[in-house]
């Protein structure tokens, strides 16, 4: 993929745009998920819409999958290129003196998020495909809430979700603000924007953690 987008500036621009797209998706996902805490009927209605709407299924979902795959492959490509830029490392490298842990370890937080996506697809997306296309069950707009909360009865799964969202928080704490710098947005409004991105990076993953823990505690 590094070969398709040849210059380093264009690569970081593409990385930032795909990241911003995924952040937008995350907000949309969170908005729907939080309704499972407020109103099961609303959650069912929204989930049914997302699962059956032609625009969402035929256009937005493939775009989202492309965005995830692109962001991951581009991130991995950049990481390999970056490691190849310094064959002999330092005997003493004091990275914490000048940069945050999150900014130096995006690849590791990204890998944890990717592993989480595997678990998430195993939990929700693959069963949904089987339900709709393999078993060809008739549409049932009331099934989503019960199916979702059933997953959060397992404490191991809830624990894995919590850990994953902590890594998502770390990833966003650097990545969200960084994407604006990459697309060239650095001006007098950047400080306020950074505050917003940091708040978003903390609040949204904490919200996801709250939803998982809420449903787990609720079933006890």
């Amino acid at each position, binding site marked *: 993929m590094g070969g398709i987008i*040849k*210059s*380093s*500036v*264009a*690569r*970081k*621009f593409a990385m930032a745009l795909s990241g911003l797209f995924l952040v937008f998706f995350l907000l949309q996902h969170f908005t729907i998920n939080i309704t499972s805490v407020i109103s099961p009927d609303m959650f069912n209605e929204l989930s049914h819409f997302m699962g059956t709407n032609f625009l969402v299924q035929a256009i937005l979902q493939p775009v989202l999958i492309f965005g995830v795959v692109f962001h991951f492959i581009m991130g991995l490509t*950049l990481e390999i*290129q*970056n490691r*190849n*830029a*310094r*064959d*002999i*490392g*330092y*005997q*003493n*490298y*004091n*990275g914490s*003196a*000048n*940069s*945050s842990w999150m*900014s*130096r370890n*995006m690849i590791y937080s990204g890998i944890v998020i990717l592993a989480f996506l595997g678990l998430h697809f195993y939990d929700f997306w693959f069963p949904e495909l089987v339900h709709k296309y393999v078993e060809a069950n008739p549409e049932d707009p009331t099934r989503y809430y019960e199916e979702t909360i059933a997953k959060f009865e397992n404490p191991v799964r809830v624990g894995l979700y919590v850990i994953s969202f902590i890594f998502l928080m770390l990833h966003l704490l*650097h990545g969200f603000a*960084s994407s604006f*710098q*990459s*697309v*060239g*947005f*650095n*001006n007098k409004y950047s400080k306020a924007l950074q505050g917003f991105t940091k708040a978003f990076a903390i609040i949204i993953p904490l919200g996801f953690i709250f939803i998982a823990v809420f449903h787990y505690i609720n079933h006890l």
Partner: protein
Amino acid sequence: MGNLIFKFFNLQIRDMKLTLKIWRQDNATTKGKMVDYPIDGIEGDMSFLEMLDVLNEELVVKGEEPVEFDHDCREGICGSCSLQINGEPHGPDRLVTTCQLHMRSFNDGDTITIEPFRANAFPVVKDLIIDRSSFDRIQQAGGYVSVNTSGNTIDANATPVNKEDADDSFNAATCIGCGACVAACKNASAMLFTSAKVSQYALLPQGKIEATERVQAMVRQMDEEGFGNCSNTGACELECPKGISLENIARMNREYMSATTEG
């Protein structure tokens, strides 16, 4: 504690005993290694390079090969000195080059590691000396303005420049090309250097004529030299002895994408 008292009362710290761990490498093709050198009699008001001078005098007296390191002006403007000291380019102090770093920044009994700036685009020549000609080639690719010098040159002062742009351009132009940005970056990226050189012209009317070609050519050369990609850690900005801002990288990104879409 003793050093803190000395520093508090602004007293000179005398007779420091240190252990230096220095990268020694005979030439570009041989493998190097860290070598320990105990040293004493170091005063707090010595510069870091003067401390290395003392070490070298001792090595010469002993008949050993002195440690090779780059230096020239010794007043922080030439960009020659380039040492990674205790894991940071130009050492622990901010907004100073290695030659402006003083031994009072260290404590008696400290072990100090001294390495060359590391990047494949900065190959080691000998000991602590590196080849930074990759920066020269980036500059040659577009870091200039073409001026007619055949007798009808327009006086620079005759072209009005917005004060804010003039200040930003001047600040970008204070980059001395020492390479600390590359050394500090975990990716060995040269974006801060290249963006400073792009910005200093892009902000001025005289530089706008060649702006499209300039940014494309300089980024292309930067990539060809084998520097890594920027991941916005901000380490370069913090370690830069001249305080070159990340705003320059954002400006270069804008300039580059706009130049690319213009064709």
